[in-house]
């Protein structure tokens, strides 16, 4: 099967174009041996079915990052290249185009964001551009679908003009002369959107905008999450599912080993979905009714912020603070991702240049950034005792994030590289793209979490009946009871935290802890150890030695923080 590669700079609408070409049946894969992911799909060219690959965005074929190196390697496997060029910034896009023409693979240019050129006062002479490049050039608007049919029809006409291999200076000189003759720019006054764009990277207005954006994001996440729980999932579970569970419980005789695993403890004909700990009760309620609603709302809001183009601006604003932690502003992106799930967050530390930064960033994420699943449980269980306790948990984690970052910055050898990023213009993303991404992320959560949660519940029930936890509890009692002030039964929860943090916090529910104990337990649980999935990714990303260092930091930080909270509160 022939392979078509979609190549272009970041932020030129390449992924939207990809989804236009291939429809909904796209799969994300990792490039062998790396965590750089790319998407592949299929396209019908007349009778022929061809594979389409969305290559990671790159500015140049002289790779300056791992993603760009992968892009270069993927290029050699393609039969045709669709070069996605930003019509509103041809100067930058054409550098890559010239390099692609030098490679000898047949190229067709999609001049995307074509609609933007008109109101930005840019006039492009398409015929002249075709003549200069020697390949078909098709104007497209991926967001609306304009020009896509034309592009597909012209794919077979992609050609290789045998361009001479140029030096860097020669390429820029060529681009200069192309631009001079092809592009005409009329001066336009700044639109309000452009003013907002500029304001959001200026210190004062930018800071205020950031505060407003983050508060709104938080409120929207809570509103959607709580509405889903209160109006959809709780009624479903309480009114429809509970009677089924009671019926099943009676059918199984109301007690016994199998009954406890499947249904859990059902007291007096009432199902407590959080505390009963059966496969069909807590095993379904925790992932679907407590965690999933927040996963959906978090990734919806994060996806919007990503696609609108706000995150790079946040990176600029946060750069100074992140430098204290030995990172640069871009590290705010893995950190925010970590609030959803630590696994993609650790993977996203790949965007940072040095091993030192990746170590600091991923250790900080694993320790001080609670994932959405854990946060949902914190809001559910700690929130019950009062908002101030939730605030203490979050405040503590934030302080730990800063202090630990400063310590790591001084303790780990090396320096922090500089921030260098493109700030894309604000764009309204098409809903289709936002929802498609949301679905991929939610599906990822369900596929990953459900089996582990169900497995964890079976394991917990079996270990309970074997009294394994009692033995461990007595053994670790001095630390857990003495240092942290928790009952020794809480040890079980801390151990289960290695499997799933949400389930672990759920296990604290039946222990009748005081609010203070619940706060200490939540903080320790968040910091102590990452869940197994994160642990595996950390191992893959950092290697054994750094993982051990990271784990040491985690245990020490968790015990110190938990001990201090126990003393202070």
């Amino acid at each position: 099967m022939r392979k078509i590669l979609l190549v272009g700079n970041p932020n030129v609408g390449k992924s939207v174009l990809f989804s236009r070409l291939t429809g909904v049946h796209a799969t994300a894969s990792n490039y062998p041996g790396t965590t750089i992911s790319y998407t592949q799909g299929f396209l019908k060219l007349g009778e022929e079915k061809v594979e389409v690959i969305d290559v990671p965005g790159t500015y140049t074929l002289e790779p300056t990052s791992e993603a760009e190196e992968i892009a270069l390697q993927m290029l050699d496997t393609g039969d045709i290249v669709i070069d996605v060029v930003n019509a509103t910034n041809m100067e930058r896009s054409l550098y890559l185009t010239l390099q692609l023409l030098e490679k000898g693979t047949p190229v067709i240019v999609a001049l995307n964001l074509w609609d933007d050129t008109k109101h930005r006062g840019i006039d492009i002479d398409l015929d002249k551009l075709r003549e200069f490049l020697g390949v078909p050039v098709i104007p497209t608007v991926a967001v609306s679908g304009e020009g896509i049919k034309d592009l597909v029809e012209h794919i077979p006409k992609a050609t290789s003009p045998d361009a001479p291999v140029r030096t860097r200076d020669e390429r820029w000189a060529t681009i200069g002369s192309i631009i001079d003759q092809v592009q005409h720019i009329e001066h336009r006054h700044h639109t309000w959107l452009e003013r907002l764009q500029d304001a959001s990277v200026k210190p004062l207005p930018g800071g205020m905008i950031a505060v407003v954006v983050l508060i709104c994001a938080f409120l929207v996440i809570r509103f959607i999450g709580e509405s889903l729980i209160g109006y959809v999932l709780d009624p479903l579970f309480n009114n429809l599912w509970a009677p089924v569970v009671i019926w099943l419980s009676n059918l199984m005789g109301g007690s016994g080993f199998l009954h406890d695993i499947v249904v859990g403890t059902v007291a007096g004909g009432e199902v407590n979905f959080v505390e009963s700990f059966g496969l069909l009760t807590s095993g379904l309620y925790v992932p679907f009714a407590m965690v999933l609603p927040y996963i959906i709302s978090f990734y919806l809001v994060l996806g919007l912020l990503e696609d609108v183009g706000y995150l790079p601006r946040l990176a600029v604003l946060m750069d100074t603070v992140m430098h204290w932690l030995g990172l640069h502003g871009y590290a705010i992106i893995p950190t925010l991702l970590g609030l959803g799930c630590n696994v993609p967050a650790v993977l996203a530390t790949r965007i940072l240049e040095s091993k030192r930064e990746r170590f600091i960033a991923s250790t900080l994420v694993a320790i001080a950034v609670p994932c959405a699943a854990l946060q949902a449980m914190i809001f559910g269980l700690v929130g019950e005792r009062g908002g101030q306790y939730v605030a203490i948990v979050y405040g503590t984690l934030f302080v730990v994030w800063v202090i630990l970052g400063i310590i790591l910055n001084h303790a780990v050898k090396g320096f922090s590289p500089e921030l260098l990023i493109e700030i894309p213009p604000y764009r309204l993303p098409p809903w289709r793209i936002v929802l498609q991404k949301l679905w991929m992320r939610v599906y990822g959560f369900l596929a990953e979490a459900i089996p582990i949660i169900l497995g964890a519940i079976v394991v917990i029930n079996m270990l309970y009946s074997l009294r394994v936890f009692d033995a461990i509890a007595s053994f670790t009692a001095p630390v857990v009871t003495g240092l942290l002030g928790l009952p020794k039964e809480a040890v079980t929860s801390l151990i289960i935290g290695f499997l799933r943090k949400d389930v672990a916090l759920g296990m604290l529910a039946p222990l009748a802890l005081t609010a203070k104990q619940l706060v200490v337990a939540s903080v320790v649980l968040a910091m102590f150890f990452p869940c197994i999935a994160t642990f595996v990714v950390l191992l893959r990303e950092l290697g054994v030695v750094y993982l051990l260092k990271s784990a040491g930091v985690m245990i020490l930080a968790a015990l110190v923080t938990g001990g201090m909270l126990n003393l202070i509160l």
Partner: protein
Amino acid sequence: MPHRDLITLTRMQTGQSGQVAEIRGGFGMVDRLNALGIIPGKRITKISSMFARGPVAIEVDRGQVAIGYGMANKIIIQLDQIR
């Protein structure tokens, strides 16, 4: 060329325009800036700078780029003549 017109990107005023005169960095830095079209001779306008040695945002061609303070300090700009 009068030297008083040469200034580092960090010391440029917000809103000022000029031409990149020189990039006083190693190959790695030159490569990364090259990829974003920031090369000697390119016209740029400074959009903003964060306080406390924060990054500098510039407009180059019709796109915007944020550059960390240390790197921005090594980019020398020839200011436009104001008449």
